[in-house]
């Protein structure tokens, strides 16, 4: 299978060698690792139990005991922020796994099979590209929640974001497959007796994989934003501690009009940094795997 491996990706160390020179990529990776560490060591890092209510300490601005202050209920906001990282990463990663699998499969089949089936899939991709995304997930989550299926709301959110967020990936993969399938080694593989499935999985997939990966990383960024927005709209699980829920509670308790900036600013900054981290990584991988985008050293 030598022919199908992209040279750049031959070894991880080789990739890292190239990647470590892309400054924005390293910055993105540092940001993302920071949040993964916060999520992993949440129980060590947070000074208080994020759900503990201290009625004597409400509406406090940042102070020596509560570094990020407290909310209307008397929760310690720093602890809530640290634990909230878990939800954002959980939703981002799992929703993206669903999107990446669905998007790659539809993109592969849509690009590989011309004719009826491929054209049908192209229409499906276009449909999902055109449909207004946020109204779609709002309607889906609202309907699934109304069905009162005994699944945690968080998984409903993951599932809905996952099955709706694949269209961008599918489009990119499809257009890449369209060019890869015309290459000579595909013809040769077919002459050698390889079936469609083998060509797709062993020859075409490895060639589009860098794109799958770059898109998946970018999809995480979108999924994190979607989760926060659903929480803000009140479609999230009110019992989980998440960044979106912190903002939702801040709004519904009038933090904006009472000037409680410490309740509003940190979650927003954390969201920006995490989303930016994933976006920077995605752009960097895309840049490395697509030479057209690389800066020409004059």
């Amino acid at each position, binding site marked *: 299978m030598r022919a199908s491996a992209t040279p750049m990706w031959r070894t991880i160390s080789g990739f890292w060698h190239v990647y470590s020179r892309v400054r924005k990529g390293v910055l993105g990776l540092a940001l993302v690792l920071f949040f993964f560490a916060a999520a992993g060591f949440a129980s060590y890092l947070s000074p208080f139990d994020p759900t503990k209510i201290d009625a004597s300490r409400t509406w406090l601005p940042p102070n020596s005991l509560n570094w990020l202050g407290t909310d209307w209920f008397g929760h310690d906001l720093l602890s809530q922020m640290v634990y909230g990282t878990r939800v954002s990463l959980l939703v981002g990663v799992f929703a993206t796994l669903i999107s990446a699998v669905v998007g790659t499969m539809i993109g592969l089949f849509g690009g590989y099979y011309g004719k009826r089936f491929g054209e049908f899939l192209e229409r499906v991709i276009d449909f999902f590209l055109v449909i*207004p995304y946020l109204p779609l997930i*709002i*309607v889906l989550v609202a309907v699934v929640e109304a069905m009162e299926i005994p699944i945690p709301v968080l998984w409903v959110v993951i599932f809905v974001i996952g099955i709706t967020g694949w269209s961008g990936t599918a489009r990119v993969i499809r257009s890449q497959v369209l060019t890869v399938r015309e290459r000579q080694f595909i013809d040769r593989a077919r002459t050698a007796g390889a079936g469609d499935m083998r060509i797709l999985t062993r020859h075409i997939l490895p060639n589009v994989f860098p794109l799958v990966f770059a898109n998946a990383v970018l999809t995480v960024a979108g999924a994190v934003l979607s989760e926060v927005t659903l929480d803000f709209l009140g479609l999230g699980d009110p019992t989980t501690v998440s960044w979106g829920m912190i903002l939702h509670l801040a709004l519904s308790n009038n933090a904006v009009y009472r000037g409680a900036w410490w309740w509003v600013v940190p979650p*927003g900054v954390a*969201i920006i940094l995490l989303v930016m981290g994933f976006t920077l990584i995605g752009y960097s991988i895309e840049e490395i795997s697509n030479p057209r985008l690389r800066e020409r050293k004059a």
Partner: protein
Amino acid sequence: MFCICTCHLVQKFHLHCTCILWRSHEDVLDKRHVTLRARTVYLAKKAGYAFLTVLVVIIFNFLLFRVMPGDPARLLLPRGRAIEKSVILSMREFYGLDKPIGTQLVIYIVQTLQLNFGYSFYYKAPVASVIAASLPNTLVLVGISEAISILLGFYTGAIAGWKRGKPFDLISTSFGLVFWSMPTFWIGIVLIMTFSVWLGIFPVTGVRTIELIHASFLQQIADMGMHLVLPVITLTLVSYAEYMLIMRNSLIDVMTEDFVLTARAKGLTEDQVLKAHVIPNALLPSITTIALALSFIVGGALQTEIIFSYPGIGMLTWQALQFRDYALLQGLFFIAAVLVVIANFAADIIYTYVDPRVKLQ
């Protein structure tokens, strides 16, 4: 927001080669005829796809609200309240619920195409008239901020792409990336906290001040303008980032093309290369991307309206969610989808005029 990554891969366009095609020796009149027919065929195909998309949205709506357990007629009425039997019966009749599922679907499609979305129990009015009352507000908000963000985004994006790697590029790209990573509603919150609560410059919410109802026409217009400033800034910031990054990447893509090298070799000045060769070609893929970006702008408008209590269809969507007014929610989803489909179709039409190759296909 997922679509932003794809702009790198938008197909390249070579206007220059089509110019040669144009100068072929065919009869000009004959070519016009051919061109017109080709465009009609092309647009008819696109119109067909657009209609198909609308149809699929209707079927999606139909299936979605029948997947839910319980009597659909009951579901479209308020929960936890005693409903008169006659109301439920009239709902059954409206949706044709006693008929087989295929007939129900046909009834539903016909009714939706006639803009008959049923009855909103919360507003106690037909869904269509509730939506029609809020739609102009949304169109004003989206229209103004899109116009600003497209012009500003394309302008700075083009400069950033042209001066790739220079300080201007780094600064504007970083700003673009930060705004792109912000949840829209959070930008709104921060603006309200700074300019309304803290500095007290702009009114906090709504579309007009009630006390001014007897004021002069000009005063009312000025008042509405003041109410619009913060929502417009919010929506502009989000979409500006998207357009700037799209234009920048599109420009960088075009700049690697051979014809740019040729133009330089011909001895054109940098300014001529940029204005005559790079920007026209970079604009082409951007038209499609604007249309696609709209499906995310709808989400941005929704969040902006909610944060500022701006009475458009986004605000309605939120209220429909709060009160579980599913008939209204269904109608709103349909309208939002149709608006984006129409915008995409409009982009296709514009495309046939801007890109000569589409005419000749």
